């Protein structure tokens, strides 16, 4: 227990406390304000009440926007997961002409063409197709943006599924369809689940694309409505915003807890993103 050791320990804990405060303080509000009778922007111990919850549900668009989020997100997530799984499996198993080039281009695309960099042409395209305000169209745009990365990550998982399983199944006379549904999918399930959660969280939080493409407030998801709620000329409705933010955040937090409990939030091997 030398003095140097003591100083270092104290320094360590001071540093950790500062970091802890830095990350925790902004989030405290999300825990207290929803249940505070007089919510403000600052942190304070709440006068406990549940009246904000009913105020939030009385707002004409809160519930419908959460439903919209769910619709948008479900379409985008399912399309991404199914199409990426099919493509990743075929790319992993079948020797196709130009496959390596295709994979290289996919990886390149997934990082180069972001929603931000392509917002103008995407907006113009949807405008000319008459798909502004179409939830299905917006979901497809979101899915298109997620697909390259999803295919790439899933191909890694598919490559790790032992081929001998499929070969044995075929020896016993299984058709390619049976091999897929009874052998490959069950074995690749962790990968498919990962992509599902990843796509869901991404689509759920996506603000820019629905903000660009869904102009009608009745079709906007929670991400866009929340922005509208606090951008109303400085008169942010503090009875509605906190509860609504909390409700909107819950699915992501639940998924995160599920993933970290089940798989652990770690990178295994290379970078997955």
């Amino acid at each position, binding site marked *: 227990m030398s003095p140097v050791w003591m100083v270092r320990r104290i320094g360590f804990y001071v540093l950790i406390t500062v970091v802890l405060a830095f990350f925790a303080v902004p989030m405290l509000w999300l825990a207290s304000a929803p249940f505070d009778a007089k919510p403000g922007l600052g942190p304070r111990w709440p006068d406990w009440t549940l009246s904000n919850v009913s105020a939030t549900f009385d707002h004409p668009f809160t519930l419908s926007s959460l439903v919209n989020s769910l619709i948008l997100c479900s379409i985008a997530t399912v399309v991404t997961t199914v199409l990426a799984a099919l493509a990743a499996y075929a790319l992993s*198993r079948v020797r196709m002409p130009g496959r390596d080039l295709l994979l290289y281009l996919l990886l390149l695309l997934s990082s180069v063409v972001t929603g931000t960099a392509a917002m103008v042409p995407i907006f113009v395209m949807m405008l000319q197709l008459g798909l502004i305000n179409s939830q299905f169209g917006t979901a497809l745009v979101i899915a298109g943006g997620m697909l390259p990365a999803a295919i790439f990550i899933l191909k890694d998982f598919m490559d790790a599924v032992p081929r001998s399983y499929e070969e044995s199944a075929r020896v016993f006379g299984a058709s390619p369809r049976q091999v897929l549904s009874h052998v490959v999918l069950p074995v690749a399930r962790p990968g498919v689940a990962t992509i599902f959660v990843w796509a869901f969280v991404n689509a759920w939080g996506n603000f820019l694309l629905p903000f660009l493409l869904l102009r009608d407030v009745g079709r906007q998801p929670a991400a866009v409505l929340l922005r509208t709620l606090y951008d109303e000329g400085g008169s942010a409705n503090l009875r509605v915003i906190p509860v609504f933010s909390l409700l909107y955040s819950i699915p992501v937090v639940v998924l995160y807890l599920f993933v970290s409990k089940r798989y652990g939030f770690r990178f295994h091997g290379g970078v997955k993103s």
Partner: protein
Amino acid sequence: MANRLDEGIDSAGLGVRRGLAFVAPALVLIGVFLVFPALWTLYIGITNYQLTGPAAANPRVVGLDNVLTAVHDPLFTNSVWLTALFVLFSAVIGQNALGFGLAWLLRSANPWLRRTIEGLVLLSWILPGTVVAFLWFAVLSRDTGTLGLLLGSPETSWLVEYPMTSLIIFNVWRGTAFSMLLYTSALAAVPPSQLETARLVGASGWQTVRDVVFPHIRGHVLTNTLLISLWTANDFTPFLLTSGGPNHRSEVLPVLIYRQALEGGELGYASAMSLLLLLGNLVIALVYLRLLRRRA
């Protein structure tokens, strides 16, 4: 790549034709919603296309005029400069340093502390962008904002008086999780015997990081820096916090593009600016892919 030899052995008996049918739907979607828009940017960027007015119906090709105008436009140069500052301070320096620092400090911390901190850092990464933007708007607001109360100057409106600094600190908070995760897994690959040797010869923490750890994780540092720079340069969240204001002082490139295109209606001009962002992304991505290949 241990299975290079049997790669491409069609173990499910799909055949090339069915394989292509499996890949096609994904490629169609990517083609329509990603490749086509990217290429179309090139075309819109050389026209005077506008959202409304005569140039909306009949856009005219103006060649490289948009690019030339942009280069001489103080709003554009200002925005490029701010984007560079944003990437440099919040990602290259901020997220990198804090992410590594956390990974390094927490590797020997007690599991409970470690889980708490990692949980909070991850939460700030996965919460929806509009929610965290409002949380920070509240922290940085005047009169009752937490920061003003903590520092004893509640009259300061941080987002108005220090918009760029606020955005940078916000983005460090928002994005550090990725660097932390990446460095945690990178540090696991440093041989413990070498760390032990460094400790025995009395190397300080800094010397150990520089001489023992860094040579092992150099590739990871580069990968991490490239990825977080790319994401930060393309991040639209600054729009939610400051909308580029006050008076363009926090107008990073994504915000400028949005305001020019959707608020100003200058679709052609905004496309020319997007082109520059795409080009920047392409350069970073090519360097990144080169690195990946060399390692594989």
